[in-house]
């Protein structure tokens, strides 16, 4: 069963951008076309999740939510603008399951979609592990397994390794790594990052994983095949 999401957003550019991003996470995204007959389109598409913008032509998101709810309990996530002055309690009272505000934070959107699929359909987002050269990074318990041995990583080291592996074969800038760490409330500075990467490399080398992380001078780090 494909993980199909219906996106009801009338702004073409935004709809395309969202579709492109969400599809890279392994979902199938269908963008609604007829804003006068959304509930009919919903019946045709049969999605597992609906991303529903509030401000639409003809009828607004709340109206379509009510319409869809007449026949289905499918999870609905509202997309709101900050000036809508809406909060999650209102969203739920209106029949929705969650809401996300513009401008859309992709990390948050990814987490919300993942959570809904897990809750509603017991589906886990792929994958729970990241792998490279025989070493498996377990995203659930933050450990690195290699050759039957478990390597413990600090929170920062884990975050750095996860980011590099998620973007395998692309250069990840130091700024990007630092931003990821700050999002975890670790306010590292330039030196700290260098120290963390060095320590991580030492740990990997100690287990025989030489040159796991390569440095691209002036650009960042990379894990490549």
């Amino acid at each position, binding site marked *: 069963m494909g993980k199909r999401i219906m996106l009801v957003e009338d*702004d073409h*550019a*935004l709809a395309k*951008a*969202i579709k*492109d*991003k969400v599809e890279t996470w392994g979902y199938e995204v269908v963008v609604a076309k007829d804003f006068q007959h959304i509930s009919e389109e919903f019946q045709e598409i049969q999605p597992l999740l609906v991303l529903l913008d509030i*401000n639409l032509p003809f009828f607004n998101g709340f109206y379509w939510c009510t319409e869809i709810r007449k026949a289905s309990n499918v999870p609905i996530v509202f997309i709101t*603008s*900050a*000036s*809508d*002055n809406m909060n999650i309690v209102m969203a739920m009272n209106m029949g929705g399951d969650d809401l996300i505000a*513009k*401008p*859309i934070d*992709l990390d948050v959107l990814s987490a919300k979609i993942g959570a809904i699929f897990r809750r509603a359909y017991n589906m886990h987002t792929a994958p729970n592990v990241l792998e490279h050269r025989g070493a498996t990074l377990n995203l659930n318990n933050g450990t690195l397994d290699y050759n039957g041995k478990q390597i413990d990583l600090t929170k920062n080291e884990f975050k750095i390794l996860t980011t590099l592996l998620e*973007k395998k074969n*692309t*250069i*990840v*800038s130091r*700024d*990007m790594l*630092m*931003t990821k760490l*700050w*999002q975890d*409330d670790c*306010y590292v*500075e*330039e030196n700290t990052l260098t120290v963390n990467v060095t320590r991580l490399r030492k740990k990997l080398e100690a287990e025989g994983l030489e040159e796991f992380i390569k440095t691209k001078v002036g650009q*960042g780090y990379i894990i490549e095949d």
Partner: protein
Amino acid sequence: MGIDSRKPSTNKQMPHSEKQKLGTGKLIGRYIREKLDVLLLVAACNIVMLVVFFLYRLDMAPFFYAFLLNVFFTFCGLCISFFRYVARHREREKLLMMLENNDYAAIDQQTLETEDYTRIIELLYQRCNSLLSEHDFLMEDSKDYFTLWVHQIKTPISVLDMLLKDDSQEMRACRVELFRIEQYVDMVLNYFRLGSNSKDIAYKEVELDTLIKSCIRKYAPLFINKKLKLSYEPVQAKILTDDKWLSFIIEQLLSNAVKYTSDGTVSIEVTDNAIKISDTGIGIRSEDLPRIFEKGYTGFNGRSGSKSSGLGLYLCNLAAERLSLKLSVTSEPGKGSQFYISGLFDKDSGERLE
């Protein structure tokens, strides 16, 4: 140099009704002056009688008797007239006070003069009211338009945000600029929300740590881009506040800290009675210090390149007032500045849990 655009001082002049309060003595004086023509007429009539009687060699005794009666009745008449004069004056004073409170009720018409003036007053009063209504309507209209505008512009900002997710240096530079655009857009929304008297405050219990951390996360890219350090020790504290407005204040202060610090550290510290946000930036001159919360005040900020709107701290102060908090600042030019948000832990608003 500083641009001073303080709002015009609220009119603390004496209300019109106080300006011309006349005591009884003065009233009598004025009445007599006004009635001088009547008095002169009566006097003239009496003199005519006196002269005619005299020239006709008539007996003066009846004349003097008549003269005394004249004086007596004139005096009585003038007294009655005087009391009516004073009463009408007091009525008009009441009307003046009513108009000062934007209220109006017609007074008794007695003379053609009063009628005419009443019609003029009524016309002016109506004009005034319709201008006020028109003004209110235009303000609401303006606010509605800008709310719609903010709403509309969030969409292309959102699109750009997603399209610029690549990790190259140009993309990162673009994202920083996009963030700045977003900040200005949010500023517009908050300007209107704080300007109107809308009661959009919702107090609830908030974990201060969570709130501060989410503000930091939002501004992380700016810190990293400028290679500034951040120091913050998590705290355990629950407070009663509106998280939206408190976030706005903290974010604005963080934004300023980053803007005016070229290198060093920005620290956030939660003390017994305040949140302290300090930086190692260029600081604020002592002459500018008492005025930085004024609307439109930019002061000397060493940034000859970009123009500051002078609104950030002004809006912060408004928001703080709305939350019954107080903003204060100390600074040393060249060393750094320290901003304090105090009043969070007052008896009614919150408790610190250690």
